[in-house]
């Protein structure tokens, strides 16, 4: 197993546990979807998996090595993260933001070289943001910003990509683009992808496996076709839905029908 979480628990302050005794294994080359209602612990789990949060109990291992023993720099070379939204304080250009993804590959006093530049250009290219490189990040639209942030994560050249609701702010055109990009990364570079989302159809289209979260705990986990079922959706969201295989799309689709 590439990334393995054993009995993770975490609570913010003295509140109820945001993640409660979660265990999961992510195989190399998998595309894993984290789904569950708002406040079910998806974001917290993503932060635990990349070591930004330290679990109160349990541990995360990367190739069998506990995250806690790895330096931030070493970790960043393996795992890149795309958060829900990114706010940038100063007027950085899109290219400058993407180049920041190279931090973990550079010495403390080394400047980016041609190699880093080509990684950054390639990342801009594959997210369709090459034309925006000289634009200031703050002036971009929500979809453009998110794609630039994804480009910055790609420039990190890591083999694991964690994305926290990356398409929430995007229209279906860009949702499609992002999903296609993630699929392509997975096929062409073997990138392992963990993506949390509220979009069940996107999850059905993209993910080979799903982890269903409810109130900080794992409700079900397994191949998408096994766990994306009407009873599970009712359990998660309290919605009666029809889950059917769509022959032209080639994956399951979820149509909500009534409050369950």
């Amino acid at each position, binding site marked *: 197993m590439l990334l393995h979480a054993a009995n993770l628990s975490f609570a913010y302050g003295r509140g109820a546990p945001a993640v409660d005794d979660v265990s999961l294994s992510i195989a190399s080359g998998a595309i894993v979807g984290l789904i569950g209602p708002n406040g079910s612990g998806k974001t917290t789990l993503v932060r635990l998996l990349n070591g*930004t949060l330290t679990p109160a109990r349990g541990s995360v291992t990367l190739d069998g090595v506990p995250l806690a023993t790895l330096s931030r720099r070493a970790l960043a070379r393996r795992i890149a993260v795309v958060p829900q939204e990114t706010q940038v304080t*100063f007027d950085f250009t899109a290219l400058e933001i993407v180049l920041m993804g190279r931090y973990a590959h550079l010495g*403390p006093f080394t400047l980016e070289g041609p190699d880093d530049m080509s990684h950054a250009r390639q990342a801009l290219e594959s997210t369709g943001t090459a034309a925006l490189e000289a634009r200031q990040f703050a002036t971009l639209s929500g979809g453009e910003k998110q794609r630039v942030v994804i480009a910055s994560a790609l420039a990190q050249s890591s083999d694991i990509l964690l994305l926290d609701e990356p398409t929430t702010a995007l229209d279906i055109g860009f949702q499609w683009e992002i999903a296609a990009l993630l699929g392509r990364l997975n096929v062409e570079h073997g990138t392992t992808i963990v993506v949390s989302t509220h979009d069940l159809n996107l999850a059905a289209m993209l993910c080979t496996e799903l982890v269903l979260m409810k109130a900080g705990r794992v409700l079900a986990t397994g191949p998408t076709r096994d766990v994306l079922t009407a009873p599970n959706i009712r359990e998660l969201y309290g919605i009666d839905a029809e889950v059917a295989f769509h022959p032209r799309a080639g994956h399951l689709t979820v149509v909500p029908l009534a409050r369950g």
Partner: protein
Amino acid sequence: MRRRIVLTLAGFGVLTLVACVLAPLVGSTSISLWRVFDRSIPFADNTDAQVFFVARLPRVVAAAIVGAGLALSGVVFQALLRNPLASPDTLGVSAGATLGAMLALTAHADFVLLGVSVVPLTSFAGAVGSLAIVFVLLLARRRGTSSTVLLLGGIAIAALLNAVGRFIQYMSNVTDTFRTVQWLMGSLDVGSYAPILASLVPMGLACAGFATLPRVLDLISLGEDAAEARGVNVAAAERIALISASLSAGAAVSLGGPILFVGIIVPHIVRLIVGADHRLVLPASALFGASFLVVCDLIARTIVAPVEMPVGIVTAIIGGPFFLWLLFRGR
């Protein structure tokens, strides 16, 4: 990138050098630059060189150090708190330094310790002390306090320290009050090189810390989580940044008094010129802060000569409109 760094350093470096060489030439006695550097005349007979090096240069060097120190700490505070309003003034460091100086002045504790007067020492302690409070607040942020709250905390600390300072001032006699008011207005008339040399110790330490920071500050401006995910050890960087910024702000304020405005405005002016990358912003701010304060002090001591205007008034009168112009000019 290398070219941009070299060009930026060269440009701002020349500006600073020109300011520091030309400023001592101006004053009540006019001197000639050629005579100052004429090696054929022995120093004891070269009055121009004496005026230049003994009477005027210390003040110019002090202005440069104070300007650089305030600007550097402003850059770091703004980046660290991810807030354009952060500065040594808004975080209470000037208030802490002022209180420290006031206590020494009203207690008549202006004896000399290790060649340095006690007033700058107590003001340095006040500056670093008030930043220690900020530091504790920042650590508390780990438990969910936003940078806005931190900034408001700084403002509250500043208000509190200022109130204590005013109370001391109110209770003290007229002579002491006059001296504290004078100190409060900020003055770069250091008199000799001794206080400058003393300030170089904390400034040197601060600069060693700053040297490790530029790229880290860039990444922190994406957010702490984003910076960590890209490989930055944010907690360690925050510690280095706060300690360095406290040392440089403390050194600056203890040398020149609480000269407002430089710490908040110089970083913004520099960002409008060189962009957001801290590998450019940090050194350029040091150099621009130095030359800005040298020029402001030159104006302060000449514009209503033979009377001197407090340099803090000049920094605000020149800096304010210049900053507004930069903000509102068409891009």
